[in-house]
């Protein structure tokens, strides 16, 4: 018997027993099973395993995920008001950066690039962080003795 066709029959029989559309018709499956002892045995064993699984129920859990992520979500949330502040900060930074360039252009010298580099690094750093450096984190606490 063709092994590939046997697999196709077995998969189709499984799909039909699951109430799904199969690759082969019921008649094709029936005809094959009647003439193939291996498939008959395989399907019988498969049926037993399926029954074993189908009689089970998923364990229901009562977990509290929210309390574990609540603080993180609140901290990572960028509210529209904060977003506006971030844009204002970015715009202000851009204006200052442009002003500095205009200021140094008349006396342009190769060393000027190094002077501008520090500004650029700071600007890019806060953009990458996606944070306003002027926001105070109220959740930070000091541990230990403070004199």
């Amino acid at each position, binding site marked *: 018997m063709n092994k590939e066709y046997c697999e196709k029959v077995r998969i189709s029989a499984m*799909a039909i027993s699951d109430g799904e559309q199969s690759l082969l018709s019921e008649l094709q499956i029936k005809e094959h099973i009647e003439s193939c002892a291996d498939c008959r045995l395989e399907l019988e064993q498969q049926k037993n*395993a399926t029954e*074993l*699984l189908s009689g089970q129920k*998923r364990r229901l859990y009562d977990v509290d*995920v929210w309390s574990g992520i609540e603080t993180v*979500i609140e901290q990572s949330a960028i509210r529209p008001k904060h977003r506006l502040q971030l844009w204002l900060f970015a715009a202000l930074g851009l204006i200052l950066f442009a002003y500095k360039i205009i200021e140094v252009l008349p006396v342009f010298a190769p060393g000027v690039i190094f002077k501008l580099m520090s500004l650029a690094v700071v600007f890019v750093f806060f953009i990458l962080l996606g944070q306003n450096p002027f926001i105070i984190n109220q959740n930070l606490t000091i541990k230990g003795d403070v004199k």
Partner: protein
Amino acid sequence: MNDTEAIKRCLAGETECFSFLVKKYQCEAFGHAIAILGNSDDALDAVQEAFLDAFRTLKKFDISRRFYPWLYTILRNRCFKMLATRRKEVKAEYDKLEILSKPAEKKFVNEVALVEKALLEVSPEDREILTLKHLDGLSYEIIAERLDIPVGTVMSRLYYARRRFREKVNSIRKKDDFRELENE
């Protein structure tokens, strides 16, 4: 409040609305994570990370679709990523039921323990598809959508998963340790 409203309000800045989604789906997600990972500690980490990922990428969510299937995709990615890094460290606990619920009748205790043990011994991929089909009763089409694979692939994966599950059941039945478990 429904899912769509919660998502819209969350995107508008009312992040506390995300708690509605978390509280609604946390138990279901936890059950699914356990089915893939095989233990509750990792499952809790995976669910928390998945909800955080979902929150961070909520803007990308297509509001016309249902929330849970989208979250499930994120969750299973988290779980498999976790398995890839912790596979050698994680050991399933066979002495307690994590995936299956306790049977109502005492005579089925051994049967449930056998199924649980066999499920824990098959691969996470097999365990996932078997539990989606048999414990959640999902159709091939919905499983295909959840796993992002064609229906034909669901059919063949499920067939081979059931076969491997059956082999595990048979080998556990043969083992002496299970006989001891039956006597307890």
